[in-house]
């Protein structure tokens, strides 16, 4: 009799149940700022497809639930709440720091892990919470960037920073200002909101200086670069946010010589990155951006964590990451988390040469 019951239950389970791990992803997927969100989404889809095709994690397939925060805080909060309601194991997101900052209180309240591939804002650094990020906080990179610009004998710069991603850009601006002014430099600040204002030639003229630093999205930075170069500005620097092939497309020939602060090296010899890049190219017919790369690194970390813990509770995930600390990356150096879930920065600079991103250690 017991055998009959067991058989029945097994049949019912086979016919009714699906063994899967739900993982949420939220990023800005629409609008002018959506490029990096889409890059991350495509890398994540590719990563989870690969895991599922290889049999899943402990035999369980990953079910990815995607939400668009639309670069809107309210939509971001709503999206995260929906994902929590969908009973996801963890959330990957957001891509821009402003959105991350808006939803961190919710994930901490609900005790659900959120791993951001690209949030670099220093505002979320050194906090023992449920927020973990794969990109290192921008502070150190920005400071180094400021030092190198100053070393190029540029004592005065204009900084145009986009308030649509205020968390990131303001943070970026403050760090740079602090370091650059400490060195003796002078800064002309030009905050603007790309979601509300048109990027105009007039604005470009306003910010034109010996050196201009653009802290905005790839398209906006690209367009501004054209305006600035046409106005005679020779030294254009960009924050890592603009580091995307879309920048070159938008800036055209004026992209030549533009320098980016970054912790992403497209020219790394890391075999895993090369393989990832090939797969990404094959699949999407475009090069992966830093956003795609960090998103894929996030998948690598999630795969390792979920493969090595038995219960998928947020505390177990967090404990594993903070205990293990060092994870494989797609860059030259491994990702090394501190006790707050922030990785150690490995700063580099990127320069555009012949429409390609070239890695440089010093400016």
């Amino acid at each position: 009799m017991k055998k009959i019951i067991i058989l029945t239950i097994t049949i019912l389970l086979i016919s009714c149940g699906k063994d899967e791990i739900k993982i949420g992803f939220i990023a800005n997927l629409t609008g002018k700022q959506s490029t990096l969100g889409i890059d991350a989404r495509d890398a994540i889809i590719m990563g989870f497809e690969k895991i599922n095709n290889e049999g899943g994690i402990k035999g369980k397939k990953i079910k990815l639930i995607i939400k668009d925060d639309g670069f809107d805080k309210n939509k971001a909060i709503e999206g995260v709440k929906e994902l929590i309601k969908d009973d996801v194991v963890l959330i990957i997101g957001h891509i821009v720091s402003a959105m991350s900052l808006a939803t961190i209180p919710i994930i901490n309240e609900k005790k659900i892990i959120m791993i951001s591939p690209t949030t670099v804002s220093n505002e979320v650094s050194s906090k023992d919470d449920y927020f973990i990020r794969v990109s290192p906080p921008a502070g150190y990179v920005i400071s180094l960037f400021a030092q190198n610009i100053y070393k190029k004998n540029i004592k005065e710069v204009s900084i145009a920073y986009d308030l649509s991603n205020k968390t990131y850009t303001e943070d970026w601006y403050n760090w740079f200002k602090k370091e650059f002014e400490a060195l003796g430099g002078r800064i002309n600040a030009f905050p603007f909101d790309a979601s509300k204002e048109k990027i105009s030639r007039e604005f470009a003229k306003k910010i034109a200086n010996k050196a201009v630093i653009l802290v905005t999205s790839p398209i906006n930075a690209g367009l501004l670069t054209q305006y600035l170069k046409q106005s005679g500005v020779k030294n254009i620097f960009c924050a890592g946010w603009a580091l995307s092939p879309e920048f070159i497309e938008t800036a055209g020939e004026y992209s030549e010589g533009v320098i980016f602060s970054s912790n992403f090296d497209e020219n790394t010899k890391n075999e895993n990155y090369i393989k990832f890049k090939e797969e990404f190219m094959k699949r999407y017919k475009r090069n992966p951006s830093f956003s795609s790369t960090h998103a894929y690194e996030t998948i690598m970390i999630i795969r390792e964590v979920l493969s090595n813990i038995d219960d998928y509770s947020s505390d177990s995930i967090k404990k594993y990451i903070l205990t293990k600390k060092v994870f494989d990356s797609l860059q030259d150096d491994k990702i090394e988390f501190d006790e707050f879930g922030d990785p150690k920065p490995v700063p580099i600079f990127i320069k555009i040469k012949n429409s390609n991103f070239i890695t440089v250690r010093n400016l």
Partner: protein
Amino acid sequence: MPLKISLKRLLLINLILASIIPLIILFSFSNIWVKKDISEEVKVKNDIIGKLVLNHIRDYLDFFTSILNSILERVESKDINEYIQKIQKDIRQINQIIITDENGRILYTAPYDNDLIGIDLSKKEYFVNATKGKEYFSNVDINIATGEPSVYISKKKEKTLIINLDLKELKKIFCNNEIEYFITDKNNTILFSTDEEDVLQRKNVWFIKNKEEPFSIETYFKEKEFITTYIPLKKMSWGLTVLYEKEKALLPVERISRSLLYILVVVIIFSIIISALIAKKILRPLEHIRNKINYIATGNYTTDISLNGIIELNGVIYDVKNMSETIKEREEELEYLKTKYEKIMNTVPVAVMLVRENGEIVEWNDYSEKLFGFKREEVLGKKSPIIPEELREETDKLRKEIIKGRTIINYETKRKTKWGDEKYLLGFYSAIKIAEEINIVIAYIDITEKRILEEKLKNSLEESQALLKEIHHRIKNNLQIISGLLYLQSIFIEDKIAISALNESQKRIKTMMLIHDMLYKTRKLSHIEMDVYIKKLVKTFFEEMISKDYDIKHELDLDRIVLPSEKASNCGLIINEVINNSIKYAFPKNKGKIQIKLKDNKGKILLEISDNGQGFNKEEHRKGIGLELINTLVKSLDGTIQINTEKGKGTKFIIEFSY
């Protein structure tokens, strides 16, 4: 080899074979066949819809290419700006019209945007790929001004003309609520879809199978699976994908599957219920019956098995009860028989034992213990200790013969006791089969005392016989003396009558003497063989007592008859008297023939003495001592006498008497 399977397993196999497997097979086949048919149907439908949509799109894009070409034709004309402005204003789907120089720098835009003049588009895909020959349709691109996804149509002449189409506006033209489809660029990014979000999010579609074949789209795409048809839009290097939601298409299959699943679940539930009922109504009672049988096997025959709802099971319960009662009766009978057997075995004054072919003792009754002094436990499983050494070989041989089937009764033998003395025994041996083993049952009757008594009797008999022989011998000798005295007396007597009387007496004494002589000489002291006796008597008579002047022949016809000595003596005297009378009176010429017959006539003895003499008158001789004596002797024999005589025709005495 017999199949061993439990009823539980049989039920489970029955459940699987009879319901689950057929349902699963039905489920699988219906899924495969119906899914295949539906997929084919959807493919055809998709194909038709796709072609219709394709024509619509071609017409639509042809409209824009014609506009593009018309602008290009007028690009050097004076009114070009107004012309472009008008077109841009009138056609909502056009976001922007751009004219660039050969290096990709913007010369003109509509709507006019001074900021964009001079902007470098040389790295843009739609500029790089624009040719003089034909229109180029770009991949999805973010409009530099609006930040929305859009596509560009570009063509080169001296200058390059670029028209930017608003993808959101395209929806308003293509939208059809009944069908779903999308257009992808060559990077598989959706540039138009019936679902606007697909475009806005620049979703990328991963084609699992070859684009020319129906394929499924990854589940991440709207988290659904679709049956799709891909039609390439070669002119634009785009592709049209017509979607039909798999779940929707396969709804009938789902319904069939669900129905089958419900049936399966119902069947399984029913099977479980039936199995549970069977378990309750059959297996448990069977277990109960089994326990009871085990209980019975332990010797407790109280069967209080309650009846069950199953008729066949009740039959089994009845059978078990009957069996139990029968066993009980048999057991009692067996107990009675056992007791009887043990009592008989141990009460009978016969030593009974059961031995194996090899002589090993398996049974040993009380009397055996008593007779031979060995206790049961001393001999059981051991070779018999009572066989004397000198009889061992003989006993082994005997045992082999008995095993072969010979039964031996009244076999006199001897065995030794524990104390060493010998016992004379009368043995009975027979083979019996007990549980496939042939054993020998032996019964010994103790005849030791009888044997001793017999010995004594034998000795006593031998002494008596010797004495009796001596008596006969002495009687014979005395009769010899009397006969001699009578003879001597007759010599001195002259009276012929007296001499005749003395001779008659002498003959009679010889007749008796002959009896005693025979009794003395024979082994049997009480009986006389009459044929031998009569022969001797007749011979003695004719040789010693008849004068040689007589020519009397005699003829004997005698059966072999044995008579007690007294009857033999009387018989001899009768024969003596009759022959004597015949010789004296029957043959005047002293010549004749006498016949003597002694026959066993149906359990009676017939004595016939006849002569061929002159016969005699019965009345005249009636008072003679001879006939008187004959009648007396016949009477003493309890017999009858018949005298047949006729003058000149001889005489015949017929005497009949019992043994």
